[in-house]
């Protein structure tokens, strides 16, 4: 049953990703396909029993980051497509080859024997355990990300200002 859901979510995610990359006319439609992918991936995380990460994926990625993308697209009012001359065919073929090579590298991983999934304790991936780990073992990384976010906020505000006065 959960395998069926995984296939459904995987199909939606791949469809969304293809929709984002292949959509040359409408940037907003690309962003919305990305949202579809994010939400489907959130579902896959929940299937993999990473509940906090699944909720955060939808909250942060689908609910804030792609909204930021949409905001910028609407602000710049990129309505008309600006890809007039044809892209060099060589580049397209090279990109496709690179894509296939990357995929083959990933699929090579599957041949390794991984063994059975480990038995996980109750509440694995729930907010309590992840939160406890985040605040005890990884508190340095946590505090460092707060500095990173502060730097990013200041940087984004300065970059987007009209003039520095």
């Amino acid at each position: 049953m959960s395998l069926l859901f995984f296939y459904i979510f995987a199909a939606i995610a791949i469809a969304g990703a293809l929709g984002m990359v292949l959509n040359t006319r409408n940037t907003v439609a690309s962003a919305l396909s990305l949202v579809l992918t994010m939400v489907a991936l959130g579902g896959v995380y929940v299937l993999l029993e990473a509940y906090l990460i699944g909720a955060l994926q939808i909250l942060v990625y689908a609910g804030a980051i792609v909204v930021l993308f949409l905001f910028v697209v609407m602000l710049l009012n990129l309505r008309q497509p600006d890809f007039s001359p044809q892209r060099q065919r060589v580049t397209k073929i090279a990109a496709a080859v690179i894509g296939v090579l990357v995929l083959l590298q990933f699929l090579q991983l599957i041949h390794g024997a991984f063994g059975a999934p480990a038995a996980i304790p109750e509440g694995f991936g729930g907010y309590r355990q992840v939160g406890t780990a985040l605040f005890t073992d990884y508190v340095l990384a946590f505090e460092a990300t707060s500095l990173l976010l502060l730097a990013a906020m200041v940087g984004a505000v300065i970059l987007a200002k009209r003039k520095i006065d």
Partner: protein
Amino acid sequence: MLVVIIKLLFIVLVIMAAFLPIITWVERKQSAVMQDRIGANRADIFGIRILGLFHPIADVLKLFTKEDFVPQGANRVLHLLAPVIAMVPAIMAMAVIPYGGVYRFGDLELNLVVADIDWGMLYIFAVGSLATYGAVIAGWASNNNWSLLGAMRASSQMISYEVTMGLAVVGIFMVFGTLRLPEMAVFQDQTFRLLGFVELLGLVETLPIWLDWIRLPMWGIFLQPLGFILFLTCIMAENKRPPFDAPEGESEIVSGYHLEYSGMRFGLFYTSEFLEIPVIGMIVTTLFLGGWAIPFLSQETIIGFISPIFGEGFATAVCMALHVGTFLLKVIFMIWLQMTIRWTLPRFRYDQIMDLCWKMILPLSIVNILATGAAVLFIRGLQ
């Protein structure tokens, strides 16, 4: 599986089919009463007008029969999709809200919530954050500058208030110790002594019995009053309820992102807006007003009171009915409160809304978190 479908049907039928038309009627009648006029009372069937209760039916018929157009130059797919995306998060949020406790009928255990997930409140935040897309896509897909303006206002307002909405309830999470909504409702089923802090601080050994009766139900609103005010403000702003309806400001930007929608497309936006009213009511009820709990009468008291007379099964059924009725009463109170706030306050200016979020609610919610954390540590340390 069948039980889940029945619970789903109950909440969908009661909230969507029963509450929604009544809320549209309440909106008109309550505003009329507050503004000292009669309100809409002309719709009738064969001459019978029950105070205008046929107006919801008239509204729906009007919306169905209006012309369904897509403006020229607009993206047809996105124009159709936007009201659907606006509607879905409001419905999805109802899945984790408990409208009754856990009842035992023999060996059947009935938990009156559709999905009892461990991270219930996070789920509500997650689907609430998806509601941004409805407004944004509606504004963009309409090929209209007023709509775009409304969409920009809507998106920045909604993502700002999501942040403070999350922070305002962190105090509640600390006090209840859980993110799971049914557990929060069970926690609020008890009472606490108002003067208990005297005993905790060690001023007296034990509180005298005759002061013991000064009790309050252990509701979120008594444990976190500031959190209640902040959360109510944030969730009303998140759902663009008036007075925070600058994105759809009817007097400024000609209906904002609703502009190019008519007929049943607008009907879906209309429905989603009026569906968010009871959903806000349900969330605030579960977090702050005790959910399905009757104040001063816990579940054991009721069952223990009735079962010697009529038997265990009947007592549990009566308790279940009482709890669901209490929940619906509290939701009705919250709906009334939102309507009152709507028709009392004038619309905020857009920069006032943003100022309120980032300069007033955010610092206050952080202060709330600090104070609650200190208090919880202090009390748990003393116990």
